[in-house]
């Protein structure tokens, strides 16, 4: 079809003529004949807008929308109309990276405000303008921390999200980082177990709190372990928990990373999400990605611009702190709007409601014969249970009842993974008592 190429046949002809060309094919004379695609692309012809949207609706219609008790790093939070509308104004959506600050103050100021909010959530003074997702933020944190420490070994808590650990492993093939898993004990990381074996002393420790099992970790203890080993501390934190819990920065993190999806981004099959990244001031020159700073224009007006660009790939090239270029700006703006909508009271209330729904759900399920906690440590907004039936089977059965029951979780040698030892369950502020009661009843039926 080509609805989006405005040239009329007359205009095509006129422009070709002014170039001294006869046909559109002549534009590609520089492409050796042997390489030309004969017969064009083996794709169907374009559709009308109406037919296209109908095809998309049909695909969308073949995904089941269930009452969601699944979490595992992707949470079913409410999104108010303001957050659904404001970030999607076309000036934000169709802008490029703010290379010309004089006409990009909108995006730049929104990012400056986002950085401030992430800084407050993390308890650290520096935050960047976003990374791809929680996993990417963790990789960048490892790059920063190992470079700062000058050591390649990283102690990774067994409670870190298994997918994030997997991504770390993938990238380690290139970076050469040596990853050492540190086992969980009673649901939390047992740093006392860790010792530098043949992989040498660690440059960084990574702990997640709440961790993948939903358990609250003792960040101060992790800090001590880091200090004992002269390592930097990376904390992966749930930003919603920040509404109730002490900030990781306050407890000694060098770098705080997290997944920003809970603030205004729908589940979206896992993306686009938002990598939150904050660090101590001393690390600012190693910061990955973009940083927006406040400055002035020639007339002294307050203005914003991307700064310390010398860290970035387009300038530093092979020596850049990171290769990230396109990031998740629009999702960062969603996060900024959502946090401003929540405000001080709303964030606390959100965390509190999640914690209440979680406790109520957990107690309801634990009342079912044969159901036990997978870990004893205290939880906030998510928890793992051991069930008398294979969790994969449970998830399939409960889907028939209209529930996404949770995410099967395994723990092997104190390290969390997919697998099937238990079921990871989250109840957000959107879950009503009636939904939870019905879910527990359905669960009891399935487990009976």
């Amino acid at each position, binding site marked *: *079809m080509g609805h989006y190429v405005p040239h009329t046949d007359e205009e095509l002809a006129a422009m070709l003529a002014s170039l001294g060309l006869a046909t559109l094919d002549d534009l590609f004379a520089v492409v050796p004949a042997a390489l030309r695609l004969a017969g064009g692309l083996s794709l169907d012809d374009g559709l009308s807008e109406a037919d296209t949207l109908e095809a998309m609706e049909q695909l969308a219609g073949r995904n089941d929308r269930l009452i969601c008790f699944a979490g595992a790093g992707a949470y079913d939070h409410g999104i108010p109309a303001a957050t659904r509308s404001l970030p999607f104004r076309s000036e*934000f959506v169709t802008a490029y990276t703010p290379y010309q600050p004089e006409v990009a103050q909108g995006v730049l100021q929104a990012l400056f405000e986002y950085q401030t909010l992430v800084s407050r959530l993390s308890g650290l003074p520096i935050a960047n303008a976003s990374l791809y997702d929680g996993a990417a933020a963790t990789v960048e944190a490892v790059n920063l921390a190992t470079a700062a420490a000058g050591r390649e070994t990283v102690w990774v808590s067994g409670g870190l999200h298994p997918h994030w650990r997997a991504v770390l492993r993938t990238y380690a093939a290139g970076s050469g980082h040596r990853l050492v898993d540190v086992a969980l004990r009673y649901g939390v990381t047992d740093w006392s177990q860790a010792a530098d074996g043949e992989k040498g002393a660690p440059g960084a420790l990574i702990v997640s709190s709440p961790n993948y099992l939903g358990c609250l970790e003792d960040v101060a203890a992790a800090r001590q372990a880091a200090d004992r080993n002269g390592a930097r501390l990376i904390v992966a934190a749930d930003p919603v928990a920040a509404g109730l819990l002490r900030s990781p920065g306050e407890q000694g993190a060098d770098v705080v990373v997290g997944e920003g999806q809970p603030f205004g981004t729908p589940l979206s099959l*896992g993306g686009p999400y938002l990598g939150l990244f904050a660090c101590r001031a001393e690390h600012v020159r190693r910061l990955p990605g973009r940083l927006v700073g406040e400055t002035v224009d020639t007339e002294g007006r307050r*203005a914003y611009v991307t700064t310390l660009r010398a860290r970035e*790939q387009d300038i530093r090239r092979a020596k850049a702190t990171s290769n*990230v270029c396109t990031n998740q700006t629009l999702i960062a703006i969603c996060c900024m709007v959502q946090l401003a909508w929540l405000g*001080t009271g709303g964030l606390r*209330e959100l965390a509190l409601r999640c914690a209440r729904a979680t406790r109520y759900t957990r107690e309801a399920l634990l009342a079912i014969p044969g159901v036990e906690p997978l870990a004893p440590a205290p939880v906030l907004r998510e928890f793992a249970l051991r069930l008398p039936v294979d969790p994969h089977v449970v998830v399939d059965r409960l889907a028939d009842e209209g529930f996404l029951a949770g995410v099967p979780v395994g723990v092997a040698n104190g390290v969390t993974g997919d697998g099937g030892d238990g079921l990871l369950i989250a109840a957000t502020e959107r879950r009503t008592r009636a939904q939870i009661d019905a879910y527990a009843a359905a669960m009891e039926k399935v487990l009976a």
Partner: protein
Amino acid sequence: MSSGGDTTAVDAAPGGRARSAPLIGRDTEPTIFEMSVPGRSGWSFPRTDLPEWAPEELVPAQFLRPAPLPLPEVSERDLVGHMTRLTHRQYSVDLGAYPLGSCTMKYNPKACDEAASLPGLAAIHPAAPAGLIQGWLELLWRLGDALCRITGMSAVTLQPPAGAAGELTGLLLMRAWHEAQGRRRSKVLIPDSAHGTNPASVTLGGYQTVTVPTDHRGLLDMAALADRLDDDVAGIMLTNPNTLGLFEEDIAAIAAAVHGAGGLLYYDGANLNAILGVTRPGDMGFDIVHLNLHKTFAVPHGGGGPGAGPVAVSPRLADFLPGPLPAQAADGSFEWMTPPRSIGRIHSWHGNALALARAYTYILLNGGDGLRRVADGAVLNARWLRQQLAGTYQIPFERPNLHEFVASASALKQARGLRALDVAKRLLEEGFHAPTIYFPLIVEEALMIEPTETESPQTVAALADALLRIAADDGDDAHQAPRTTPVSRVDEARAARVLIPTWDARPEAETAK
């Protein structure tokens, strides 16, 4: 609040004043923090009949924060005012042309926005079992299939969330493949015109970058390539057309040479817009291709992201792709599959799924016929624009360009002190976004211009007129530019010298809050 010396309320910025909207004025828009008033709120939550346990009943005391986390306390009205005014201070494709070379800032069809917001796509949890998300799996599978047909490759991963992530994925695939052949190689060749993410990714991939110069033609220097090729070269990263917008005519020979040395060819797909339906990286001999769906396939840039950077590969690399991948089972249903020798995950989940849905929508809208038309329009606009400017701006290389071209302001700089930066800032006043400047690095005072196919001949002509006018202006004038924007030239040096990365870091922060 200070009216008539009266102070009846907290002294915060008024959320309902529009002087920062260029419609009205050029005031600074206050930050959301300056609008905050303790106790004000816009949030609400559903009725609940759950027990109202106190924090202390839910979490052991030592974990609880002593004081609430301070966030802006604003009304929905003030939040809406703030964000709406910010949008009036922001340029965008929807306002006008955005000829940033290498960025392919084409118009993003509104239909794609609607597709990406379908609840049946947006409300789906990424860990839902395959049986419950057949629509999503089919969408991803079909998109992957289409991308293979477009690139001439045989398998694809949709996980990489952007081009740079795609590059690193590709390099890790390269590494895994070499290791599977029992070799360790340490170097990757990159042309001196390459985008910065290429060398940065090479480093993260654990390789050293070896630069290959560009020759007088603006193409890869074949002799220099031959010099640098040896059995320690893992591969070469190219984009074709290259960042000068010129087609690497020797690509077949390059492929033969690199393959001959046991290396692989990586295709940076950022410039794919130029060759859609005309030729395919696979046919040129490339082994690995990343695509920037946020360029060629009209995923909007969102002020810097999110994008999507799928990686497609030739058959011999398919087994190494990241997983899980969508696959079609014998019974026609779809499932997740992880290749036998997968390098592992690249993303927390399945990549920037909603961006992938937008790209698939765009492909359906255009079809094979429309995509070819895209290449025609993109190249025609760029070629024609170059012709208009040729007399006035230097065009460092002779050969016909494809979707973009690089011009140089160096003569204008010598003549009248008009630098590429000045041209860029003046162009803003003319009603167009600036082109990419000072890239590629091999051209002095480079202006890298990519009009894209969605701009009409009239718009391209107006852009040409503006650039010609600017070249004719006196330079001093240009140094003042832009004079019509909400802020004038921004002091970038000061931003780095006196770093203020957050509102809380401002000297005045204490008082202002």
